[in-house]
């Protein structure tokens, strides 16, 4: 992730769980790490990005890029090619998934996201550790949008943890960023409140595990303030 993010710094902005992880770390909090890497990019840079990813041993499969590793008995990971991966027993094979959300679809399999253009146009990201990482407000808005009326099981619970970590980050959220993204595509917050209430105890145990405090009222007040702001 760091290698791709640094080498393609001008073309890629990190979003998703790793972005949450890095933003939380920057603010002195902790978050859950992830297996997948999610970036955003502009269609106009598709060729340059793909060329770089292919040269870095990523294999395009469907809408995602995959890199294969062979896990040896001592726990080390060795990068291998797609051909080599076919000869390795499944329990020794590890895969790294890299997904890119584009401003416009680049093929029928790819995904376009309504916020990508604004992320690049308004530079809604910070540089963390040499990688461009989306602002917490962007990560949150994307999560609010993905989750709209959709049950995604365990992944949704992890998203709830990410949302909690970012909403209660020590720095105040910039509501203007939310307003800007909301104007591009509206997201809902009612489900966040409902889902939060339904999973309160689970969430409390996870955030305690992360060394954070569980503050139900503060979370609900910030979400409510955001809701009120977006109504105006």
């Amino acid at each position, binding site marked *: 992730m760091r290698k791709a993010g640094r080498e393609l710094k001008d073309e890629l902005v990190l979003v998703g769980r790793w972005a949450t992880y890095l933003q939380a770390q920057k603010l002195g909090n902790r978050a859950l790490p992830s297996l997948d890497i999610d970036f955003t990019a502009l269609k106009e840079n598709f060729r340059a990005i793909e060329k770089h990813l292919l040269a870095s041993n990523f294999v395009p499969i469907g809408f995602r890029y995959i890199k294969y590793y062979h896990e040896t008995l001592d726990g080390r990971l060795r990068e291998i090619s797609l051909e080599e991966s076919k000869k390795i027993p499944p329990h020794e094979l590890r895969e790294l998934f890299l997904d890119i959300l584009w401003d416009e679809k680049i093929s029928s399999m790819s995904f376009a996201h309504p916020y990508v253009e604004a992320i690049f146009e308004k530079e809604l990201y910070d540089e963390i550790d040499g990688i461009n990482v989306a602002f917490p407000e962007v990560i949150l808005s994307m999560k609010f949008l993905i989750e709209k009326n959709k049950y995604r099981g365990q992944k949704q619970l992890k998203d709830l943890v990410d949302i909690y970590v970012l909403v209660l980050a020590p720095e105040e959220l910039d509501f203007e960023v939310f307003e800007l993204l909301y104007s591009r595509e509206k997201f809902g917050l009612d489900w966040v409140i409902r889902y939060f209430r339904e999973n309160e105890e689970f969430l409390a145990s996870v955030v*305690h595990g992360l060394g954070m405090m*569980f*503050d139900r009222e*503060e979370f609900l*007040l910030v979400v409510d303030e955001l809701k009120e702001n977006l109504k105006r």
Partner: protein
Amino acid sequence: MKAPIVKEKILRELAFKGSTSVRELLAQFGVNRPYLYRILRSLESEGAIVLEMGKIRVVDKKSLIYVWGTEKRKIFRVVKGVTYKVRPKKVRDFVVFSGTSALWVLGKVLEPSFGTAYIKKEDFERLRQIGIKREGYPIKFYSYDEDVFYYVKSIRGYMLPPVEQIIADALGEGMYTRVIEELLEDVEWMM
């Protein structure tokens, strides 16, 4: 009924220090000798301390904290705190969270509602301004004991007193749960 505030100070000193002397307590709290001996003899009969030749040693901290909790109940019956609904992060710079509020900071309970917090008299106006908004959790604020501020530690950005005080305050609030038992076991183990 008079609130046993001085007695609480003596209990706190014993709980925090573990050993001291009659002479030190007399000098520190300006109480008369018969009153102090009454307190010490009753603690001795509870098995909480050993008193020998003017030297005091805590031998059962759990019992000592239970006595403190009982006294705390009496104090809370007499000294009426002020309840404000507040967002904890808005007041954490100038109040000490204890009892249930501190247990919440420590991740032992889900919310700090009806917990105890200590505030200096000079900060009451600040609290009132925050409390007017009526946002957050109802917390009971007390300003009768500013000594609490001498012992605080910062945990997760909140000022908390030592665990013995947190337990005594939680008992004073009327909280008797497994959480308290677990904390008491920890305190005993640390002795």
